[in-house]
């Protein structure tokens, strides 16, 4: 009942604070054209287009996929728009994959983007919601208490967040598409950067980026004939939980844990620490790396920070995390989840360039959103599922 599906084309833009050289249409077209070229396909080969992005207020355009229809070559085709908060880039790829898995389409183009320079994301995120405390200082103010709670529960030393930021920003130097290329970065430069939302420093915070990511997903028949090695999708999963609930633990959310367990089970993974070669996870603030290492079952509860301290998640470590530089180095919000999924696919296709992990055969892509209540994950591999 479920057809096999593979990633056969990947493209992304250069991410930067302001892509003033292109319109929104130009931005998505840049990523999509690169994905088509990578897949050795033309626009006419595509059966359907699935678009994702975060809140429309980030650009000030209501349902912008309508305006982007012809730029995305969707005339006369199905065009679908997903929005699941910050996890959207991941869930968009999953919705696109399902169109192939269901046998409805053979070649689906999926595109996610954000052009944050068109508006002001921090204030778009800071509007008062009835019956809820207003988040008047952006996402960092929301997540800082979760991080402090993690530090208290795990007895993690203060410098763990600094180590994560240093690693991700150093990895980004190997990624030509990354927004931040901080050649002078050091442990001390991160440590001495301004404290924004204690314990989150400026250098431990994601940037605000313009950027887009695109993938071509194809059926087994198409992928078998592809010029380049496909990344086979071995499992996909999404989970959501309430925003306001006394049952929730936002530090180690049950939704994230169940999402991971589901996707590993589909992929036949019983020991993720040993069976997964590398991971791209959604880390917008440095401390989320140790938290997600635990939530996604790579580390025992309370031990995630030891992986960071021991260098396990370094590019040359045992379990490399965020080889691309991650969200900490590029954050076109709506595309950030898809970039994680795409990097996982690039690794198993062997096309990650200087940030390639030798012999990567199984990789995990992860995205989360909202106040840690929306999760999307996939597992990709070199072998057919």
């Amino acid at each position, binding site marked *: 009942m479920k057809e096999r599906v593979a990633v056969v084309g990947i493209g992304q833009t250069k991410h930067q604070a302001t892509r003033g050289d292109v319109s929104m249409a130009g931005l998505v077209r840049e990523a999509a054209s690169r994905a088509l070229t990578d897949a050795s396909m033309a626009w006419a080969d595509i059966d359907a287009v699935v678009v994702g992005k975060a809140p429309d207020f980030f650009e000030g355009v209501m349902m912008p996929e309508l305006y982007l229809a012809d730029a995305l070559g969707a005339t006369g085709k*199905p065009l679908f728009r997903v*929005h699941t908060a910050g996890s959207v880039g991941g869930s968009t790829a999953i919705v696109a994959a399902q169109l192939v898995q269901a046998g409805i389409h053979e070649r689906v183009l999926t595109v996610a983007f954000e052009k944050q320079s068109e508006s002001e994301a921090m204030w778009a995120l800071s509007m008062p919601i*009835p019956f809820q405390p207003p988040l008047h200082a952006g996402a960092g103010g929301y997540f800082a208490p979760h991080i402090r709670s993690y530090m208290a529960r795990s007895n993690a030393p203060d410098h763990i967040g600094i180590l994560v930021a240093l690693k991700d920003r150093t990895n980004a130097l190997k990624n030509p598409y990354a927004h931040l290329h901080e050649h002078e970065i050091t442990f001390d430069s991160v440590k001495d950067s301004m404290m924004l939302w204690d314990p989150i420093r400026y250098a431990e915070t994601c940037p605000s980026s313009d950027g887009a990511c695109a993938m071509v997903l194809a059926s087994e028949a198409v992928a078998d004939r592809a010029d380049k090695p496909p990344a086979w999708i071995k499992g996909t999963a999404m989970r959501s939980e309430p925003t*306001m609930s006394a049952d929730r633990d936002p530090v180690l959310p049950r939704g994230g844990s169940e999402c991971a367990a589901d996707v590993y089970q589909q992929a036949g993974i019983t020991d993720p620490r040993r069976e997964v070669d590398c991971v791209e996870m959604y880390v917008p603030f440095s401390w989320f790396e140790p938290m997600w290492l635990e939530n996604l079952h790579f580390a025992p509860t309370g031990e995630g920070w030891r992986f960071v301290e021991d260098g396990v998640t370094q590019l040359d470590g045992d379990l490399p995390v965020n080889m691309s530089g991650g969200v900490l180095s590029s954050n076109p919000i709506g595309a950030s989840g898809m970039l994680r999924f795409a990097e996982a696919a690039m690794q198993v296709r062997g096309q990650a360039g200087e940030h390639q992990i030798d012999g990567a055969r199984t990789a995990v892509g992860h995205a989360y959103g909202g106040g840690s209540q929306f999760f999307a994950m996939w597992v990709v591999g070199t072998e057919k599922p």
Partner: protein
Amino acid sequence: MRDVAVIAFAQMPNVRAETVLNEVEMLMPVIRDVRGRAGLDQQQIGFTCSGSTDYLSGQAFSFVSTLDGVGPWPPIQESHVEMDGAWALYEAWVKLQLGDVDTALVYCYGKSAPGPLHEVLSRQLDPYHVAPLWPDAISLAALQARAMLDAGKAREEDFCEVAARSRRNAMNNPNAQLAWSVSEYDLINEEPLVDPLRKSDCPPTTDGASAVVLAAGDRARELCRRPAWIRGIDHRIEPMALGMRDLTVSASTRLAGTKAGATGTYDVAELHAPFSHQELILREALSLGDHGNVNPSGGALAANPVMVAGLTRIGEVAQRIMDGTATRGVAHATSGPCLQQNLVTVLEGDS
């Protein structure tokens, strides 16, 4: 494809402005109603998908709050589209095709009243070239209506006939917002609002919400005496720019209809035509000719909750099949200016 059916439908009575309840409070009774009709609680539902837009509620991530009203604990498999609920139903239908889950909840909501809707909708337009001019939705629809007249494809009397019949039909729909009986001969004397459209040719501004439960195969038969089977479903889009399209036809509706197997005869058709002339365009695109039972609910001219009216069309057809008053029907949903994007689904009951 796997057999998937609508097994329950619920909607809140459409109103001009729901000024007391917020979106979460407005939606909760509809969710409770539809789950009750299906005989399922949230933990028995395999997948949940919703449709809404932040531009109506005026806040980013507005769907996050309404999800809390559904009660997603323990965590659920869930997704959201920034599209009319009809497309949320499409995603749920795709999910059910995969065979991992057998039931899905689909819901949508929209409060059009708090803002100047027809100006808000201008925020959908090309942000660099068109949106700065703030062309409102009624004026764009009027250009389309004028193109119909200029092409000799309709007369203003034809618009009035749609407007009068829709509100007359709505008198039998307890959930309709606008229902009255005035003859088309009287409507023709109404002054134009935006020439050539009269106020009667335009939809009311509506706050509303609706929801559907889908189930696959034997599970549908267990839960529903007469499931409304989705025999075909497809959606297509055209370029947004009005100058790139022949506005007197709906190529995307025709194509979606062909892909969805929308041919033959129907007992009922529900078309999402917010403006009266658009029903004529859609009738032609779906080869409905002068079919006698189009929009028995009154359609979007009787209640037009933005982000909801499309799913409600599917629900209205499905309800008639579940009731046994129809055996085969076609439902249509639209999005974007002047019928830019269209979804068509064919529903059938067991004969």
